[in-house]
């Protein structure tokens, strides 16, 4: 895998659809999404709550819950299709090649196990160290994520650590086996603003050191712009636009992306200048969802949008948009 040419993406999500069977109907959470991520690249999945960002992350990790079904597509990671990989193969890849950091680090850690042992569990599982050396490696990992006094902290329980410290522990767990791809699912939600920056810098720095690809999942377009080379914008289970960050901000081609940029602080001089996006996500349980799920909120909507199947248009230099009438 290490010898793969640079043109072959590390991760290719192709035509992926995921549904959830619930009591009140089938939720079409992801509808034929696709994107690519190369070794060492950083990409952000941006969208509002319920747009399918986390479902995408969980689908890649193979940790969707029982009610979920992958109805189409492939997730090719290092030449292996993760959708059709068996549990044994997935167990080998998770934590070693593919790692994830969750939001709410405090609840994402086992409350009654010392953090050093939780890191050691992963090291032992993936066979990198012997049982005698695992505790020392765990302490080394804590030192790498700049936890002060790592030897003592390794014996701490999550409730004895601050939220920021817990997130550092999560990062240490995720990076313990030097994965090829790190998924960071809203890694700074619930942390205060100064801690956010420190954690994001830490992730970016460690990713660069290991030439590790990073998929950042966030609702914060500003954060995505600061840390990622590419951005994929999600809306209601579709990827509506994918572009290099600079191109996306300079020339957004999807009406939703344009609204999202206008709604991001930093672009506007004051609060009054911030635009809000009218309407809400459509109900994904509806059987008669239009091909483009943005039609109800779109100012440019035409009859074609509700009748013709949605197409992904290539606009050059990695810029794709799923719209019949791009800006």
């Amino acid at each position, binding site marked *: 895998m290490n010898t793969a040419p640079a043109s072959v993406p590390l991760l290719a999500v192709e035509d992926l659809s995921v549904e959830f069977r619930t009591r009140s109907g089938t939720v079409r959470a992801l509808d034929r999404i696709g994107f690519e991520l190369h070794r060492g690249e950083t990409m952000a999945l941006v969208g509002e709550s319920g747009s399918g960002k986390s479902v995408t992350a969980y689908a890649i*990790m193979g940790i969707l819950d029982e009610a979920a079904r992958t109805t189409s597509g492939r997730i090719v990671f290092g030449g292996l299709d993760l959708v059709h990989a068996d549990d044994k193969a997935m167990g080998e890849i998770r934590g070693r090649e593919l790692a994830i950091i969750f939001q709410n680090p405090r609840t*994402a850690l*086992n409350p009654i196990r010392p953090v050093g042992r939780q890191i050691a569990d992963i090291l032992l599982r993936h066979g990198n160290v012997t049982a005698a050396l695992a505790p020392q490696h765990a302490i080394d990992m804590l030192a790498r994520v700049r936890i002060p006094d790592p030897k003592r902290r390794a014996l701490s329980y999550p409730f004895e650590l601050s939220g920021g410290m817990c997130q550092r522990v999560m990062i240490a767990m995720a990076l313990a086996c030097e994965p090829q791809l790190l998924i960071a699912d809203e890694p700074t939600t619930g942390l205060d603003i100064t801690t956010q920056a420190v954690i994001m810098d830490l992730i970016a720095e460690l990713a660069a050191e290991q030439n590790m690809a990073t998929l950042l999942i966030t609702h914060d377009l500003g954060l995505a712009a600061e840390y990622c080379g590419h951005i994929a914008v999600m809306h209601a289970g579709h990827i509506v636009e994918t572009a290099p960050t600079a191109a996306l901000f300079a020339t957004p081609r999807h009406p939703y992306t344009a609204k999202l940029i206008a709604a991001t602080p930093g672009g506007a001089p004051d609060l009054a200048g911030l635009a809000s996006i009218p309407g809400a996500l459509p109900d994904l349980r509806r059987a008669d969802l239009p091909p483009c799920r943005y039609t109800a909120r779109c100012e440019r909507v035409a009859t074609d949008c509700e009748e013709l199947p949605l197409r992904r248009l290539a606009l050059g230099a990695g810029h794709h948009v799923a719209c019949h009438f791009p800006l």
Partner: protein
Amino acid sequence: MLLLRRLATALPSIAGVIIVTFLLTRALPGDPAAYFAGPAATTQAIDEIRHQLGLDRSLPVQFLDYLGQLARGDLGTSLSTGQPVLAELLTRLPASAELTLLGLVLSVVIAVPLGIAAAMRPGAPVDHFCRVVTTAGVSLPTFFTGLLLVYVFYYLMGIAPAPLGRLDVFSSAPPHWTGFYLIDSLLARDLPTFGAALAQLVLPAATLAIFSLAPLARITRASMLAALGSEFVRTARASGLSRRRIVYVYAFRNAVLPVITTLGMVFSFLLGANVLVEKVFAWPGVGSYAVEALIASDYAPVQGFVLTMALLYVLLNLGIDLVYGLVDPRVRLEA
């Protein structure tokens, strides 16, 4: 140190138990003096007995007397047997304790794996089986289950010994070390007696186990489901940890906390349920002793019994707290 502080918090409840049992036994219907004087006694004879027993004095004075006796470790003398209550309780307590503990162990050994299995496959046959067993367990009163077991396994099938106490007539009690026949007979390397004691224990212990199975299995299932759906189990899965490690080390160790709490409650239910089960199986324990004394308006054994149970309960809760602290680091800090 922690132990001492925790014990000190139990003192008020013990004082409360002493007062309440004293008042309750005095408020019971029936006149012990009349009972012991016999049906043919004259009023004068009854009064004389009442004076001998100290029952003609005022309640506060009687209470002070009672406290003074307690301080000397004297729980009084049973009027019906003429024996000191403390000595009788001490000889009978191991019989009850052995029965209750075995019932509890049996119950845990069945309920916890059943609860885990049900939580791993919600809606599957094992989950339905768990639900049926727990519903049946709570709906059957212990004396009924006990009689049913005796009827089926002793009367119909003849594979259980007669429900007549701790040993059949052909065996003799093992030398007294712990008072637990199973342990004492093993210490004496007396396997036939061990077998006989075990045979006598199986049915009453099963009766108690069936009764206590339900709350334990249910709480195990519920807390296991919660733990398996928790975020830290998701993290463990995302880290590629083996299924065994996720289920037993990550999920179960967290799920076991409410199970321990429930275990304490179940044990106290069992202490109560014991009274009837001992009656059904002619078990020479403290429960049957208390019931007989209660019927005879014999104050001292009833008071002694309630006090013993209260002390056991306090000790049990102390033990539960200590175990809890071992499992959950957050509790250690608060204490």
